[in-house]
């Protein structure tokens, strides 16, 4: 079995200084996306633990797995969680969720927490789609656009390139800058054909970094087109898997001439985080606290 370069590092994290037992409201969000799944648990609105894993072909399974991994070595168990919101592609297939909310609402809410209430425009570059979202100071969606016709500008595209170039996906961004000068972007927007175009370039003798640069800038340009249709209002933040790819993010910033806010947490958990925050709000409602 050859190395799977597209496999991005799965991860989990537990807050060292929060004792869930002392918590009043334990809320969680599970984001089952087409490529990755995350679970986030919050204690009284503070981030307690999360996990980030690849989605399998069975989403209830993936949801459970993400949650189990998140709760690993916390001694917290599912039954102690007061409320769970399911989101993402498989949101209706989260067996233990109390309610399903779309990833658009959740990402906006999550970004509002991660980047602060000044965020007005969120770019979520997920596994297979790409969303541009406007929200208010509470993180409530006011407008959004989604590219659901073409997968260009999505994580899936980057995975394809990691495989093609045999470069671990987490290195793609850095390497894409190791070129003397920025090459022409690849012309094809379709992931499949961008790939065969890239093969053509490699056969022409282009080195991997140059091909990568050409693809990254094509991807960035594609995304900027989407953003400009909805217009970027400051502050601007990027969430989702590709947010970790500086090769794309820096090129987007350059084209927009706007700097994106620095993430405080793993950008892939924004959706699940938003879910957990909504869960808290819903528990407070139940308890008549709002």
């Amino acid at each position, binding site marked *: 079995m050859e190395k799977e370069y597209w496999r991005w590092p799965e991860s989990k994290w537990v807050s060292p200084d929060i004792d869930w037992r002392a918590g009043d409201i334990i809320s969680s969000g599970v984001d089952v996306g087409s490529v990755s799944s995350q679970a986030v648990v919050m204690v009284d609105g503070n981030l307690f633990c999360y996990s980030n894993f690849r989605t399998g072909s069975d989403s209830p399974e993936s949801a459970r797995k993400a949650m189990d991994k998140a709760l690993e070595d916390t001694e917290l168990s599912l039954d102690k969680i007061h409320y769970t919101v399911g989101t993402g592609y498989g949101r209706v297939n989260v067996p233990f969720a109390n309610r399903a909310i779309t990833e658009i609402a959740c990402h906006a809410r999550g970004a509002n927490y991660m980047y602060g209430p000044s965020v007005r425009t969120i770019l979520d570059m997920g596994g297979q789609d790409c969303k541009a979202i406007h929200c208010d100071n509470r993180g409530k969606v*006011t407008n959004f656009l989604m590219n659901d016709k073409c997968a260009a500008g999505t994580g899936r595209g980057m995975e394809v390139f990691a495989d093609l170039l045999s470069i671990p996906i987490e290195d793609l961004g850095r390497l894409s800058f190791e070129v003397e000068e920025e090459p022409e972007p690849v012309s094809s927007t379709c992931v499949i054909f961008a790939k065969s175009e890239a093969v053509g370039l490699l056969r022409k003798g282009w080195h991997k970094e140059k091909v990568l640069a050409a693809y990254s800038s094509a991807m960035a340009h594609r995304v900027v087109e989407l953003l400009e249709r909805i217009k970027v209002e400051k502050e601007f933040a990027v969430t989702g898997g590709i947010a970790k790819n500086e090769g794309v993010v820096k090129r987007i910033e350059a084209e927009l001439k706007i700097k994106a806010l620095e993430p405080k947490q793993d950008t892939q958990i924004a959706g699940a985080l938003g879910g957990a925050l909504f869960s808290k709000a819903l528990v407070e409602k139940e308890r008549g606290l709002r």
Partner: protein
Amino acid sequence: MMEKLKEWYEKRHEYAQEWKSKTGGKVVGYFCTYVPEEILYAAGVLPVRILGSHEPQDVTEPHIFGMFCPFCRDCLAQGLKGKYDYLDGIMIAQSCLHIRQTFTSWKLHIPVNFSYYLPMPNNVQSKRALPYLTGELEVFKEAVEKWTGKAITDEDLNRGIEIMNKSRKLTRELYELRKQENPPLTGLEAMYTVVASQMVDKRDYNETLQEMLQKLPQRQIENGSKVRLMILGSENDDTEFVEMVESLGAVFVVDDHCTGSRYFWNEVTLNQNPLEAIAARYVDRVPCPSKDWPERTRVNHIKKLAQDWNVQGAVVVQQKFCDPHELDIPAIIENLKQNGVPVQFLELDVTVPIGQFKTRLEAFLEMLREEDLF
């Protein structure tokens, strides 16, 4: 309660075939709602609108280039697959180029003993359109007479007008009910109703609709708490799509579609010359975007619908490659937004990838609702 209409929608071919054997009359399939059905009813001919099936198809590639709208290809596919073999004739009234190809290819490859191209004027805002169309309707009437071997008298024409006007009046009443805070019918049911009316004998339709209008006011149905939406754009008889949206806690209360309000909105105002009266109706009706120039009259019409039916949001659907609508939609969206109506825009193919759209519509509804989350 609305089962009959759903049945008509689903069993359109069976209905038409039964109608033929029952009445021994002729059936004409038509491609565009600019076809003056009054004249066909006057001649005792049943007009049925040819629509697609929303199934993926692979038979039109040799006949219509893939850059033309999926709807016109889907319609042709129905003919090529033999679904409409019972038709005695086909006709089209001039509107967009896309559906025109369905007519010309149909004529080339599917034998019928009557086919007619009515050059309905596009410049309906010109004072020259009325006399011109009146003249063309005269020619059309003669062609029908020649085909059926029966003269069409003014009484016949007035009867045809009466049948059409009645169905228009009744359908308008149905739409009026949708203004209520708790509309007694869903958007899906409304769609079944209007599309069915394009497929069955208007006399059967009028009868059924009259009964419905009696019962509807007492109907127990929970629409009050749902988000009131309007839907507009390219040809759309996609019940699966409408059903999906309404399953998310929304209810469509009004539309601007040629499979909806645009079809029946205007009535014929009688005068001494029935053909001129009919012509006037088609020149003055709420236009298809392909005829809405130099001024854009639809923009205000749509705004008014949104206000009168008190909608909270609008779903704008664009059939891929549908140039006429693509050329109006940006102006319409801008106007709706200026008037405080949030819009969700979707580019449809005849076979909708429901999964992809569901998320967007859910998010749109959350945007209009979901205050409880904050």
